[in-house]
């Protein structure tokens, strides 16, 4: 899962959002790292709805234009959680070693296994 996809899904954890709100929330959650352009967002939404990770939940008219809100589906939430667990595992690989570094000065030699 690419980083923008991860943050788009994460932005929907607290409930459905419309297009611009997803852009804002994504930027906020990623500490400004992921700044989605409108075209990129909709390409991602097309793909994610195709995969069944995201669905359209609400349609309203604001200032004469349609505004659609998207929400996370159960499979989407599952995929997000799985990705978070994978990244946590990957992070642990380094953070655990980091403790050794701080404590002992030099990292223990990696075992061949």
């Amino acid at each position, binding site marked *: 899962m690419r980083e923008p996809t991860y943050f788009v899904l994460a932005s929907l954890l607290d409930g459905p959002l*419309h*297009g*611009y709100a997803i*852009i804002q929330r994504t930027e906020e959650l990623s500490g400004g790292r992921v*700044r989605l*352009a*409108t*075209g*990129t*967002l*909709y*390409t991602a*939404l*097309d*793909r*994610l*709805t*195709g995969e069944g990770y*995201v*669905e*359209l*939940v*609400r*349609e309203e008219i*604001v*200032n004469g*234009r*349609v*505004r*659609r809100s*998207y*929400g996370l589906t159960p499979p989407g939430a599952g995929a997000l959680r799985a990705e978070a667990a994978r990244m946590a595992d990957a992070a642990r690989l380094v953070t655990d070693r980091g403790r050794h570094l701080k404590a002992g000065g030099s990292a223990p030699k990696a075992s061949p296994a």
Partner: protein
Amino acid sequence: MTPLERHCGWLLRAYPVWYRRKRAGEMLSTLLEASPPGRGWPSFRDAQALVIGGLRVRGRVWWLSMLWVVIGAAITGYAFFITTKPIHADFWIPLLNTEPAVVSVAAYLTVAAWVVLTIPVLIAGFAQLRWRGLRMAAWAGAWAAGFALMYQAGKWGRYPGNSPAIGSPAVISWGELGLCAAWLALGAVMTWILAAPHHSRKAAEASSRPSRQASS
């Protein structure tokens, strides 16, 4: 309509009609919200993303076909232009014509690119249209027309004066102008043929229609 709205509308034309019908209103509101007030144009990043997104929805076959058409039209125009040079050798044998070597070689490479593009794009188009239906017949017809145009260009390019000339000294003839116009028309027809939504339609439809699950 504000200038920003108008310019966003232009950029949204990068997307095919069926997609715009479902998405343009929504994307426009997002674009307007994302642009700081008082600006006439969306940010460069937004503009770039729209063009790339539009090309992606249209698909590789579409933009490769357009490349084929544009190169074809350019070769046709150039082949006619070269025949107006005082002493001209055959355009189809570059390096023998009177243009500077760089131009000659570039023209030669362009012709090569056109030829190389032909077969894969033709087949990819058939694959996208699933080898059936009226659109596939139209696709085959469009390509036959493309080859016919190139053949005619080759004939007129070789023997200037086959068709009444425009202006004096003649730069291009009416027939040749017609051929260039026909190339552009061919591009429009191909765009129409390929405008039938393919694989990405399902996704866009799913994401622009509330699901039953959510509304119950």
